[in-house]
C-alpha cells in the first residue's frame, strides 16, 4: 500500500499529480460568470415549452391546438403527427429500443411529451400549453415489473410489431450448474429480497437545449446539457438525418450531471426540429417537475439474492435474480452487450468460485431512461445486494460482520483476480482498507459500547460496506454504446512559449477536469498546471470521445492525456538532443528538463524545447509539438473501499441519526486529493440521500409522487452527516498513472453501510431487512413486526 505523498513527482510550483491545486474553473463560477445552458441567448431566439401527458396510459384520440396557435406570440405548435411527416416522431434509445419523441398513438407514462409550443417568450409558450386540448382514452396502468410480467398483462409497447408481452430484455451471467451444485452442498443459505427504489439524479441544473440551425447553410449549432457531446452529435446525425459535418454540439458549463445528462431526450429533438422548420434559434429548458417526471430515472431494481455458506463461514456461491422496471421505453444508457449493465459485479469484494445472475427487464407505465445515477452501469444495485447479503450472512451464522468480510475477501496476492462472472479485477487490498476504517472508527470499542447501550435500552447500530466497483469502460472490444466503441481521446498542443492547451472528448460537470487534467500534463511534461488550458464540450474543437459518466474520465481520458504527453516528451527528447548536440539516448528527463547524463548543467527546459520546436526544429523532424491519442483501455479499473456507519435509532419514532461515518477509499493514485475528497463527500451524501429519504414513487394509476423538491426529498446541509475520510493507494497496474476513478465510489458503496447500520441496531430484535429509503415508518413497522405485531 502507498499514500498520495508517495506519488508526488513535481514541486508545488509545477503542481503535478498529488498536489491540492485550487480549481481554475472556480474563478468564473464564484463571479457568476459561468455559462450554463439557460445563459445562452441568441438573436431572434424563440422559446419552447412541452405539453405532457397527465395520465400514465391512454390512447391518444385527438389534439386540438387551434386556440394555442391563435395566441399572440405563438409561432408554432408541434405535434407527433407533424414530426411523423419528417420521420421524427420516434427516435432510437441508447439501448437499441425506440422512444416516442412526441406521442402519436398512445401515451405510456405520466409526463410523456405530447406537443410543443414555440413562442416569442417563455411565459407565452407556457400559457399556450393550457390552450391545447387533448382527448385521452385512459387505459389501465402497470406500475411494477411483477405486474408487467403477469400472464395476460396488457401489452404496453403495442407500437412494436414483435412485442407480445412486456419483457424488455432477459440476460444472464455466470455458471448456473456450478452455482446450483455449490448451493446443494451449502451448510447455510442466506436469502434477501429487496427493492432498490426508483430515484432521480436531479442535478441542480435541469436539462435543456438551444438549437440554432442556419437556414442559409444548414449548419446546426446545438447547445445541449450533455455529458457526452460527441456521441450526441453522431446520434443527432442518425436521428435527424443531418450531415454530421454540419452539426456542432456545444455542451456549455454543466450544473451537475450524475448520469441525468447522458441520454438524448425528446425535448432536444423537438427543439432541433423546431429550429429546422422555423429557421430561428429555439431554446428549451425543462422545469424541475419535467426533469423529475420525464428524464432519466435511476435504479428501480427488484432483487432476489442468495449466498451459499460452508460450515467454516466461507461463501461458496451466489445467486441473483433481478426484475428491473424499465419504464415505457428501454432507454438505459449502458454498453450494448450488457443488458443489465455491469450488475454482474455483484460478487463484490469476495472470493468464491460460482455465481449465477439472471436479469429481466419489464416495460411499465413509468418514465423511461434507467441511467446510472452516479454509478457505473448498475454497479450500485450490485454492490448494495452483496453488502446487504454479507451482513445478513454474518448475522445468520453468528460471526462479526467485519470478521466475516476479512475471512471472505479476495486476498492481495490473488490479483489480477478472475471473478466468477467474468471480470478481471486489476488490483486491490481489501483487508487493509477495512482495517483502516475499523481503526479510525474504533471498531472493537464501538461494539462494546453498543452492547452497553442495548442494556440501557438504546439502539446503536454499526454498519459496514466493503465495496468493489468496476469503472472506466471500455476496452472497446467488449464495451460500446449504441455501437460507438468506448475509448476516449486527448489532443495536446504545446505552444512556442511553453504554454499548452489540452482538448478532451470527455465533459466535466463539476469534477474539476480543467484543473486535474492539466495536473497530469504537468507531471509528464513539467509545464506548470497553471500554464495549461483544458478545453472540453465543443465538438468542433475537441477530439472524439464517449463522454463523462461511469467514472470513466480519469481511467480513459486521463490515460489518453498521459500517453500523449509522454509521446510529446519523446519528441522533445529529439529536439533537446539537437539543442544540446548530444545523442537522444544520452539524455535524462527530470521534472521539466532534459540533461546530458553525467553533466547536469548541460540541460534544456521544456520551455526552451517548445520554442525550438517552432523556431529551430532538428533537420528531418516534423516541426511543432502537438499530438492526439485515442486510448483504448486494456481493462476496466476496480476502485474499492470500506465504509463504517454508526447510527442511533429511536424505536419509538423510527427515526435514525448518523453518529459517525468513516470512509476509506482506494481509487488508485489521486491526481488532486482535495478534489477527490470533494467527490467522496458528495457521493457519501447521495448515498445517505437514498438510504434516508430520496425516492420516487407512483400510485396505482401511475401518477408520479415526487415530482418536485417538496415531495422528492434531497438532503440539505442540516440532515447531511459529517464524514471522516481515509485513504489507501493501490495503483491500477494497467493505467499509465495508476489512477482508477472516484466520482461514484461513495454513492455506490455507502447506501448499504447506512442500511446495515440501522438493521444492525435492530438485529437483536429480529429485524433483518428494511428497504430503502429507511423511512421512520418503515423502521417503526419493522420493530413492531419483529415483536410479533
Amino acid at each position, binding site marked *: 500500500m502507498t499514500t498520495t505523498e508517495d506519488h508526488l513527482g513535481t514541486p508545488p510550483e509545477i503542481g503535478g499529480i498529488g498536489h491540492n491545486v*485550487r480549481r481554475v474553473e472556480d474563478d468564473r463560477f464564484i463571479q457568476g460568470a459561468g455559462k450554463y445552458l439557460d445563459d445562452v441567448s441568441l438573436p431572434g431566439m424563440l422559446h419552447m415549452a412541452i405539453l405532457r401527458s397527465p395520465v400514465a396510459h391512454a390512447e391518444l384520440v385527438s389534439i386540438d391546438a387551434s386556440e394555442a396557435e391563435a395566441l399572440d406570440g405563438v409561432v408554432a405548435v408541434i405535434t407527433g403527427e407533424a414530426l411523423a411527416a419528417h420521420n421524427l416522431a420516434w427516435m432510437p434509445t441508447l439501448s437499441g429500443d425506440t422512444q416516442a419523441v412526441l406521442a402519436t398513438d398512445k401515451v405510456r407514462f405520466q409526463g410523456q411529451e405530447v406537443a410543443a409550443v414555440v413562442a416569442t417568450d417563455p411565459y407565452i409558450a407556457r400559457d399556450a400549453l393550457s390552450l391545447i386540448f387533448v382527448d385521452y382514452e385512459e387505459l389501465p396502468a402497470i406500475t411494477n415489473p411483477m405486474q408487467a410480467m403477469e400472464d395476460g398483462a396488457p401489452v404496453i409497447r403495442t407500437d412494436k410489431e414483435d412485442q407480445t408481452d412486456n419483457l424488455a430484455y432477459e440476460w444472464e451471467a455466470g455458471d448456473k450448474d456450478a452455482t446450483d451444485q455449490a448451493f446443494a452442498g451449502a451448510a447455510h443459505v442466506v436469502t434477501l429480497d429487496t427493492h432498490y427504489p426508483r430515484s432521480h439524479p436531479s442535478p441542480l*441544473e435541469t436539462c435543456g437545449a438551444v438549437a440554432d440551425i442556419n437556414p442559409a447553410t444548414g449548419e446546426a449549432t446545438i447547445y445541449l446539457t450533455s455529458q457526452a457531446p460527441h456521441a450526441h452529435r453522431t446520434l443527432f446525425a442518425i436521428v435527424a438525418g443531418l450531415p454530421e459535418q454540419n452539426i456542432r454540439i456545444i455542451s456549455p458549463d454543466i450544473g451537475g450531471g450524475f448520469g441525468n445528462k447522458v441520454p438524448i431526450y425528446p425535448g432536444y429533438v423537438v427543439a432541433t426540429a423546431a429550429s429546422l422548420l422555423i429557421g430561428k434559434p429555439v431554446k428549451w429548458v425543462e422545469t424541475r417537475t419535467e426533469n423529475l417526471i420525464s428524464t432519466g430515472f435511476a435504479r428501480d431494481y427488484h432483487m432476489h439474492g442468495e449466498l451459499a455458506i460452508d460450515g467454516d463461514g466461507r461463501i461458496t456461491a451466489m445467486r441473483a435474480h433481478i426484475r428491473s422496471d424499465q419504464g415505457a421505453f428501454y432507454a438505459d444508457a449502458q454498453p450494448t452487450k450488457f443488458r443489465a449493465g455491469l450488475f454482474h459485479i455483484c460478487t463484490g469484494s469476495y472470493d468464491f468460485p460460482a455465481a449465477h445472475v439472471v436479469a429481466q427487464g419489464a416495460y411499465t407505465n413509468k418514465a423511461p431512461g434507467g441511467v446510472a445515477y452516479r454509478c457505473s452501469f448498475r454497479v450500485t444495485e450490485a454492490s448494495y445486494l452483496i453488502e446487504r447479503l454479507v451482513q445478513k450472512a454474518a448475522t445468520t451464522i453468528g460471526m462479526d460482520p467485519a470478521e466475516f468480510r476479512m475471512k471472505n475477501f479476495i486476498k492481495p496476492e490473488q490479483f489480477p483476480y478472475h471473478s466468477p462472472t467474468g471480470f478481471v479485477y486489476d488490483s486491490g487490498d481489501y483487508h487493509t482498507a477495512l482495517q483502516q476504517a475499523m481503526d479510525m472508527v474504533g471498531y472493537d470499542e464501538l461494539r462494546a459500547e453498543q452492547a452497553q447501550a442495548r442494556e440501557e435500552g438504546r439502539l446503536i447500530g454499526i454498519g459496514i460496506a466493503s465495496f468493489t466497483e468496476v469503472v472506466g469502460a471500455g476496452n472497446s472490444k467488449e464495451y460500446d454504446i449504441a455501437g460507438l466503441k468506448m475509448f476516449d481521446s486527448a489532443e495536446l498542443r504545446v505552444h512556442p512559449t511553453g504554454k499548452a492547451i489540452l482538448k478532451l472528448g470527455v465533459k466535466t460537470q463539476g469534477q474539476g477536469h480543467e484543473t486535474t487534467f492539466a495536473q497530469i500534463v504537468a507531471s509528464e511534461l513539467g509545464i506548470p498546471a497553471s500554464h495549461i488550458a483544458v478545453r472540453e464540450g465543443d465538438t468542433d474543437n475537441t477530439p472524439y470521445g464517449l463522454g463523462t459518466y461511469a467514472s470513466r474520465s480519469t481511467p480513459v481520458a486521463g490515460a489518453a492525456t498521459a500517453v500523449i504527453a509522454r509521446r510529446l516528451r519523446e519528441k522533445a527528447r529529439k529536439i533537446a538532443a539537437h539543442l544540446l548536440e548530444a545523442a537522444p539516448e544520452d539524455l535524462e528527463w527530470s521534472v521539466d528538463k532534459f540533461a546530458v547524463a553525467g553533466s547536469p548543467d548541460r540541460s534544456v527546459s521544456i520551455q526552451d524545447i517548445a520554442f525550438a520546436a517552432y523556431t529551430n526544429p532538428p533537420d528531418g523532424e516534423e516541426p511543432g509539438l502537438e499530438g492526439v491519442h485515442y486510448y483504448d483501455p486494456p481493462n476496466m479499473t476496480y476502485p474499492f473501499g470500506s465504509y463504517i456507519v454508526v447510527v442511533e435509532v429511536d424505536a419509538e419514532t423510527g427515526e435514525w441519526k448518523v453518529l459517525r461515518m468513516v470512509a476509506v477509499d482506494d481509487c488508485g493514485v489521486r491526481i488532486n486529493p482535495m478534489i477527490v475528497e470533494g467527490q467522496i463527500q458528495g457521493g457519501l451524501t447521495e448515498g445517505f440521500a437514498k438510504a434516508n429519504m430520496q425516492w420516487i414513487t407512483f400510485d396505482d394509476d401511475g401518477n408520479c409522487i415526487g415530482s418536485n423538491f417538496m415531495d422528492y426529498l434531497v438532503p440539505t446541509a442540516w440532515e447531511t452527516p459529517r464524514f471522516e475520510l481515509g485513504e489507501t493507494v493501490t495503483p491500477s497496474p494497467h493505467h499509465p498513472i495508476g489512477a482508477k476513478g472516484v466520482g461514484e465510489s461513495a454513492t455506490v458503496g455507502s447506501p448499504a453501510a447506512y442500511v446495515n447500520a440501522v438493521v444492525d441496531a435492530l438485529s437483536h430484535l429480529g429485524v433483518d431487512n428494511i428497504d430503502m429509503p429507511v423511512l421512520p415508518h418503515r423502521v417503526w413497522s419493522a420493530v413492531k413486526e419483529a415483536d410479533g405485531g
Partner: protein
Amino acid sequence: MNVNVTINGAETSADIEPRTLLVDFIRTDAGLTGTHIGCDTTSCGACTVLLDGVPVKSCTLFAVQANGRSVQTVEGLKQDGSLHPIQAAFKDSHGLQCGFCTPGMMMVGKALLEENASPSDDDVRWAISGNLCRCTGYMNIVKAIQQAGAMLAES
C-alpha cells in the same frame, strides 16, 4: 408596467408584465445570469439574492415586489477589482463543484456573516438549509463560509 430596481448599485428599469418573476427580471432584463434557476418551488435556493440585504429566493417574488428596492447578486460581490472574502474562501476551501448552487450559497453566506461573524458548524448548516447542493455534501461549503468569516475578521 414600469419597474425600477437598483441591482448591485445600478438602477435597472424595464417595462414588464406584472407577473414577471424577480429572477427573470434579473436574468433577462438586467442581463445578470449569475443568479440561477434550479426549481420553481422555492426549494433549492439557486436563485437566492439579497433584497435590501436579506436573502430571498428570487424565483418566488415578482419583480414588482422589488420595485424601488435594492438587490444584490453574485455579480456585485467583487468590489474594486478584489474578490469578496466569501468568493475567495469558496475557491480556497473547495466549496463548489459544478458551480450552479454557488451564487445562492455565497449570498446566504454573506448575509449570515454580517449577522454572525464567526458562526459554528451548526449555525452555517442552519443558515444554508434552504439551499440545495447536489455535488459537495456541504462540508466544504460550511468550511468556506467559516473561512470567509475569519478572513473578514482579519481585514
